[in-house]
């Protein structure tokens, strides 16, 4: 029970420490030790169900009331209804409103989750996406009755192509991982079209996990490339592994360490010299919009995470979209349909069409035209910012990251949380908690959990794998200097506290709706649905 005792002390401590900027976690922790949210035991909607309650009223049957088994053979009909909840509207609204408050969200607080670009989501975007002409447009509406949607998609294709420096864009992939799948399949189609069967794809050891996972799904062998002491691709290792069996190198630049690889031109040359393609994981594009273009760096295929650089509400993990831009040599294979513009002959102005006639296309990766609602939001963003605004967004994202890094290099922090690669970073940076673990006895996980008590969402932890006890911090351009200062102060406070008593952080958090959860037990005996 010593854990509980120290938890108690720490909870009191936390209550006193909550900063001005804290929104999510407010008020003092009561003497009983539990916050109101913690006392509010979790009940599911199924546990609030009572036979006979309802919200939905079915429209009257205005056609012959034929018994169902005369329409559909009884053997095909359901015997027992699905056990959906039985609740009235007030309970339904209250239930989901209450549990929503058990989430931390970007609107309420700082969310420096590295590699995820948690920038502000402008509310204009929700309004334009909800316009009936967008939200109530059926995906199989004829092209002539969907000209506004097709024009928007065409314009977005152009804008993304310009930002990437690659002329041909497919909006179809639904997420970054889906864009990667498209990219590796395009690579395969490209090589096979030349009668060239290749077997391997290179990924740096710093890569996002989606890169190697995608490679396997596409039937290639993953070959890892090392990282040099400056945090970039190890050129010697790359030269040694680049051969005529290599189909592609998948690279993120700036990479997952937040560093721009200054050898990118040489990397591109090595890859192209063996006939392979160069794939750009666009997760980190927010650093370089209008500053440097993947196409100019030598990349053949780029995916965009519209939910990152081009701001979508992250929705608790989706939806997003992962369009791709490709070079001329990849273009014949791009997914179909494509949105194309046809100049009219009678002077009516341009017409936009879905082009299915693409004989070398790899085909489809999903239904319909892609996540159009996401396109509307990102297009609104690009129209709001324009060329200058996009460039400024990247500049300020990089400025904010470097400023926060400078603040975290101050005495009291740097000796426990040194930056993994001491260079100017781009839009994010990686700290290592190894000295903190050794000298203070708290791990990166403990620091992350203690940040929750301070009202912050922690940075990404334990990624990239290359850095021991990694902490990947991405503040984004939409945060104020004051927020960055307060966050840096909170980190310093936690370290000072740990120096005095490491058990406080080790048992954190205290003020959240639940405290540390037993993940091992959840995985050992998975309970993935409510027993009914």
């Amino acid at each position, binding site marked *: 029970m010593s854990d509980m005792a120290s938890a108690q002390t720490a909870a009191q401590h936390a209550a006193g420490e909550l900063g001005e900027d804290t929104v999510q976690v407010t008020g003092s922790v009561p003497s009983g030790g539990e916050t109101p949210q913690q006392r509010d035991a*979790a009940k*599911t909607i199924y546990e609030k169900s009572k036979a006979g309650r*309802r*919200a939905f009223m*079915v429209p009257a049957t*205005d056609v012959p009331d034929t018994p169902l088994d005369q329409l559909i053979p009884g*053997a095909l*009909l*359901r015997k027992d*209804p*699905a*056990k*959906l909840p*039985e609740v009235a509207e007030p309970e*339904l609204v209250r239930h*989901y409103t209450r549990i929503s408050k*058990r*989430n*931390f969200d970007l609107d309420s607080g700082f*969310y420096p989750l590295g590699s995820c670009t948690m920038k502000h989501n402008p509310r*204009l975007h929700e309004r334009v996406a909800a316009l009936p002409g967008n939200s109530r447009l059926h*995906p199989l509406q004829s092209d002539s009755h969907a000209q506004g949607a097709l024009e928007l998609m065409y314009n977005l294709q152009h804008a993304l192509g310009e930002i990437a420096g690659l002329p041909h864009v497919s909006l179809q992939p*639904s997420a970054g991982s*889906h864009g990667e*799948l498209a990219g*590796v*399949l395009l690579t395969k189609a490209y090589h096979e079209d030349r009668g060239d069967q290749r077997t391997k794809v290179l990924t740096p050891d710093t890569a996002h*996990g989606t890169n190697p*996972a995608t490679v396997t*799904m*596409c039937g290639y062998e993953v070959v890892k490339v090392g990282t040099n002491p400056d945090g970039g691709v190890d050129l010697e290792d790359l030269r040694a592994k680049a051969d005529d069996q290599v189909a592609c190198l998948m690279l993120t630049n700036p990479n997952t360490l937040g560093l721009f690889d200054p050898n990118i031109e040489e990397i591109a040359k090595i890859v192209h010299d063996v006939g392979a393609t160069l794939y750009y994981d666009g997760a980190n594009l927010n650093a370089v919009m209008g500053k*440097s273009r993947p196409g100019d760096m030598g990349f053949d295929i780029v995916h965009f995470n519209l939910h990152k650089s081009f701001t979508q509400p992250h*929705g608790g993990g*989706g939806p997003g979209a992962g369009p791709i831009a490709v070079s001329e040599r990849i273009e014949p294979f791009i997914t179909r349909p494509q949105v194309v513009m046809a100049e009219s002959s009678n002077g009516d102005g341009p017409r936009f069409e879905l082009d299915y006639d693409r004989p070398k296309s790899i*085909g489809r990766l*999903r*239904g*319909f035209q892609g996540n159009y*609602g996401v396109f509307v939001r990102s297009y609104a963003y690009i*129209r709001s910012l324009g060329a200058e605004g*996009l460039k400024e*967004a990247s*500049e*300020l994202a990089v*400025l904010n990251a*470097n*400023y926060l*890094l*400078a603040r975290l290099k101050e005495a009291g922090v740097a000796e426990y949380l040194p930056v993994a690669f001491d*260079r*100017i970073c781009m839009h994010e940076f990686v700290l290592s908690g190894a000295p903190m673990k050794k000298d203070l006895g708290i791990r990166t996980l403990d620091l*992350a959990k203690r940040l929750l008590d301070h009202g912050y*969402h922690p940075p990404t932890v334990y*990624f990239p794998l290359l850095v021991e006890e990694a902490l990947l911090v991405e503040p984004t351009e939409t945060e104020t200097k004051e927020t960055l200062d307060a966050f840096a102060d909170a980190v310093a406070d936690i370290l000072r506290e740990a120096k005095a008593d490491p058990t406080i952080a080790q048992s954190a958090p205290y003020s*959240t709706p*639940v405290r540390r959860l037993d993940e091992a037990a959840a*995985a050992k005996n998975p*309970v*993935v*649905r409510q027993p009914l």
Partner: protein
Amino acid sequence: MSSYTAATQQDIEEMLAAIGVSSIDDLFAEIPEGVRFDRALDLPAGKPEQEVFAELNALAAKNTSADDEVSFLGAGMYDHYIPALVDTLTSRAEFLTPYTPYQPEVSQGNLQVMFEYQTAISELTGLPVSNASVYEGPSAVGAAAYLAKLANGRKRHLVSRGVHPHSRETLETLAVGYGTTMEEIPLSGGITDLAALKEMLSDDVGAVILQQPNFLGSVEDLAALAAAAKEHGAVVIASCDPIPLGILEPPGALGVDVAVGEGQTLGNRLDYGGPSFGFFAASQEHIRRMPGRIAGETRDVDGRRGWVLTLQTREQHIRREKATSNICTAQALNALAGVVYLGWLGKQGLVELGELLARRTAYAREALTAIDGVTALHSQPVVREFAVELDAPVEAVIARCQEQGVNPGYALGRDYPEFSNGLLVAITERRDRAQIDRLAEVLGSAIAAERGAVEVAG
């Protein structure tokens, strides 16, 4: 121009000083000169919110939405009514703006929604394990085929011609990567040809992929098809429309191993095709082969009930090249709309909705096939959609109907050359008897006019 940023000139100067550089350009010095972008992007200048609104409003107004005509379009996405509370709840910042629940202590709302959603999908499909959703319908079918490949490693996958054309094309695209081959099981009389399936089956078939109801609206006899596939040890995959599952026997009770499908009909907007969500449920034996996020129940250190992302050792961020899928996010917000919608319909409501659709669809099928020049494309049982053949060029007939404010449905010819004048007609609870009668009237006139036009031209 706005970049939604707050840095003042003074902030910038103070920050640069703290960093120890003299200009923002210094921060980009690592970018080699050869790849520095030294001109402005060729994009229009940014503009104020009200002007962006005006531009996008004008673009949206060029589209003919389901509010602008009486629409019988379906073929995978359907014009169901979305209750207001779905909008209210999905636009709450607490659901709208967080990311994947990496920190479960501050993501319990999101994780509980996933758990409740998984329960609802499990109930609908009759299968014990559901993930927290995947991208959308056809890609979910593709993901299911990969599960089959992981399960048995067999190379031949058989897919019914009754499966949505977009799903079949997605399967073809992915098969190149999976190293599998796709063969099509033909249709007979509007349903999957059981005899043909039996002939195609052998012990090298890894998966049999079906759809319920199929693309032509027919309710398939999944039990018979699944039993045939099981004799050869194939994984049986069914792509299902969740609304008809309110009245149809669930796939899990009929021998289906993996049930997937498009979730748009559950409280999600048409949105010209997305975003929506795909659902993915499977039998217990496949739990560790599932793609995507899964929420599981557990306890915190004080014994409080809570939820976490579980079975993460399947996933790309842990397993990398050995992961069961590259998928890293769900469609959490869309799945939230789904579970709220199902809660709104409730246990009885889903059944009543299904019954209403079946009766109105039967009425519409009768009304349309009574028209001179319209015949039923098949006579199989249907729930919410049916196919007819016109004795006139279907695209021209659709155009004539649209001029009268009625969109009669989807022309089958593009995907099914054998039904070159086929029309697929979808019914939802928003299409009442009067609208169905109007469809019959407009369609009849359009066909008559088109035949007249052909005669005149002839």
